[in-house]
């Protein structure tokens, strides 16, 4: 059960990362465009009542995408663009990657979380105490019929 949960979380993180990549490379929208499909995913998670820590999943996915992608492109192009920008602000390259990761993480986490909360807002969840009352109501109806 525990391992299933971990596997499910990792799968979700991967899905979010793929969503970000597809949105930004193929659809080529504004720099924050990926927040829209991520938000939709958050809504879907909430609609299906999957018990997910949306902000954490989103944050990890966004953090990894932004920091690792920046590192990948910097190495792949064999250039020092990010290193140069880091030196403008007297950061180290690692700190700049961390900042990039934080930005990606916060945005993705918030987008996924907002998606979840949107559905909660539109379709309010029934409280456990209400569910108990309903059970009592149904039991009473059945007993009355008997």
């Amino acid at each position, binding site marked *: 059960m525990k391992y299933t949960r971990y596997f499910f979380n990792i799968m979700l993180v991967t899905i979010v990362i793929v969503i970000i990549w597809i949105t*930004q*490379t193929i659809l*080529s929208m504004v*720099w*924050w465009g990926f*927040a829209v499909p991520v938000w939709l995913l958050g809504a879907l998670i909430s609609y299906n009542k999957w018990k997910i820590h949306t902000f954490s999943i989103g944050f990890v996915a966004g953090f990894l*995408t*932004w920091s690792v*992608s*920046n590192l*990948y*492109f*910097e190495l*792949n*192009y*064999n*250039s*020092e*663009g*990010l290193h*140069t*920008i880091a*030196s*403008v*602000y007297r950061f180290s390259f690692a700190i*700049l990657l961390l*900042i*990039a990761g934080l*930005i*990606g993480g*916060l*945005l993705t986490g*918030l*987008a996924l*979380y*907002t998606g979840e*909360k*949107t559905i*909660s*807002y539109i379709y*309010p969840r029934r409280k456990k105490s209400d569910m108990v009352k309903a059970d009592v109501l149904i039991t009473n109806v059945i007993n009355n019929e008997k």
Partner: protein
Amino acid sequence: MKRQIGFLFPLISLTILILGLSLQMFNFPPLGKLLDPFEGIVQNGYDNLDYNGSIHGMAGLSNQVKIFFDERKVPHIYASNTEDLYFAQGYITASLRLWQMDFVSYISAGRLSELFRDPSYLDYDRRQRRMGFLQAARESLSLMQKDNETVKLLSAYTKGVNAYITGMEDRNMPLEYKFLNYRPEPWTNLKSVLILKYMSGLLTGYGEDLAMSKAIITLGQDQFNRIYSDYNNYGSPIINDSSQVSAQIPSFLQKPNYLDYSFLSSGTVLPPSLFNPKLGSNSWAVSGKKTSSGFPILCNDPHLGLSLPAIWLEFQLTAPGINVYGVSIPGTPSIIIGFNRDIAWGLTNGLDDVMDWYKLKISNDLKNYEFEGEWKKMQLTVEEIKRKGQRSFFDTIYHTIHGPIVYDKRFVDNQTGLLNFALRWEMHRPSNEFLTFILLNKAKNYKDYDAAIRHYTCPVQNFTFICKNNDIAVNHQGKIPVKWPGQGKFILDGTKCAHLYRRYIPEDSLPHLLNPYCNYVFSANQRPTREGYPYYYNGYFLESRANRIHELLEKENNFDIAKMERMQTENTNSFAAKAIQELLARVDNSSLNSQQQHQLQVLNLWKGAYDFDDTSANFFETWWKNVVNYTWDELKSYDFPLPFPNNYILLDLIRTHYSDPWFDVKSTSPRENAMDIITSAFIDALKESDKQKEKGLCKWSDFNKVSMMHMTYIPAFSRVNIPLAGHPDAINATSGGWGPSWRMIVELGDRPKAYGVYPGGQSGNICSNYYDNFIETWSKSRYYPLHFYLTMKEAQDNSTSVWILRQ
């Protein structure tokens, strides 16, 4: 409620985060856009110079164009007609230097307020508009549009630039746009002209009219002529012909009658001098009669502000009827300095004063000005200065027959001395410089060259020229008004018709030489004529480099490329070489201790060389600076600072007027003479030198550091504090932020042999390997061979990458 907060809070946080990361906050650029891995800065690591293949969608091309990049990524363009050729030049230039050329056009037009919020940029923009750059560009463009060839080729260039902008993906947008948070706008012919006007402003925008007016009133004409004379005994003019003597133009300037204290405003503050004596260049040409190959050699190194991206961009342009190699200015078509199969040409700044201020008499309602006893109505224009995030600023500029009023009560700009003066600047006159270069690029002989340069008007430039048939020439070229003696050196009276310029020095009377008997010509910003030239002219001429060039050209008879390379990177300051002897001869040895005597002996061996490891050069600099300051102390005592006179004037004073009152230091009671000044200057210099040695500063390169600053002045984008040899008064004129922005040596023959280098790289992309890869070669005084291909096959065989532009 809790549900609502649970939904709204993250939504609002998300929105604020997106907004905050999309905007410039404090001094940080929009971090979200910048660090986006897909379209942010990291994507600028992709270098388009590594691309190899076709590029489609070139609307405006009639046929395909092939561009072969050599190992230094110099593009060799092969087009089937000249329109496509210039289209391609525009496209390539935009690919490599879009932000640079775009930004310069904003600077020139006074549009920086559209990019930056800081209120100081509004002042800058107002100054640019009032100085007339944008208006001058508009008027020159109107003139150019009357010439079919110019407008055809200029428009083709513009289309090429726009083809690049249209096809550019956001992720490939130059880093500076991302950093400064704006986007490129479509290119226009006007923007190309603005870039030319910017160069014109750099090269002619200096003036001393107000300072000289104050000087002649304060010092009197006798002293004024002693120390601010237009001529001195140390020149090596362009024209050596001493038979052209005329008694009509005296070199002694009378103080104009109209010029007195009441004419100039009282209590004026003179702004600090903007004179940059480093803004000059060298060029010389030697006939085959003095070369070992028998073919002529031309050398040119223009001195400009050293910036990154580099000010020049190398090209070879080939189409039917044209095959030319050289450097271009990003944003403008054609080759500005270069060579083709038959000729080569170079440029140095003429340094003539073509900028004058006219004092006006203005009516009380500020709408009219007096001219020859009558009131004339001022014309006015309104310039809209758009501002980032704010409403536009509308500036009203008043115009007179002389030119615009730059400084008035609405815009004082610390120029109280020029308040309500009109500016007459040759740059304001419409001109078509493009035609000069379009024609020069395909010129085959002296006749073609002569016809081409006649279109050139401002700034005054010295053109040097060689032809395969061994013609060599130098021309001091541009529109220089005919002046009465002293006219233009001082503030002029805007109420008088007699102070207007009526005509220009005729073309054929401009200083020039063709095939002189000495078999060489040279130009290094020196005064182009001796006394006796039939027209008065004034300027800000520099003699030291020309003197050294003259000396070297005279001595040698078997020049080749290697000798020219050594000459072009030579560090001897001929002024210093002369001055050190005069100073050493006049030091009072008897008052010196043994350490000081020893220093004198060391200096005795020094020949004026500012080499990398030289240990005497800086001492001389300090010693001479002290001599200058102690001699001219009176000039600092006025409530307005006066420029120090020419160094050669002081040298003459030392040689011939030992006890001149100028040597008397006012703050001391004894009366000093030249020996006293020189000795105390020497002792003080030695103290300063000892302190510097304690800090580990000893060699000339410890003091002479050169920086190539990016146009944003961000150090991380620049190359700073490179220790170098050289001196502004030596042929190798490197210093501070100025120096040889391009070095070129061309030997014509059956096939031109050429060598060149500039401190930068072909790419304007900070992340590119080709951004600054030439700097080390340049700083070590080495050169690259320039590949001038005669056929497309040669270009193809030697290329490292190829672009094919297709419709």
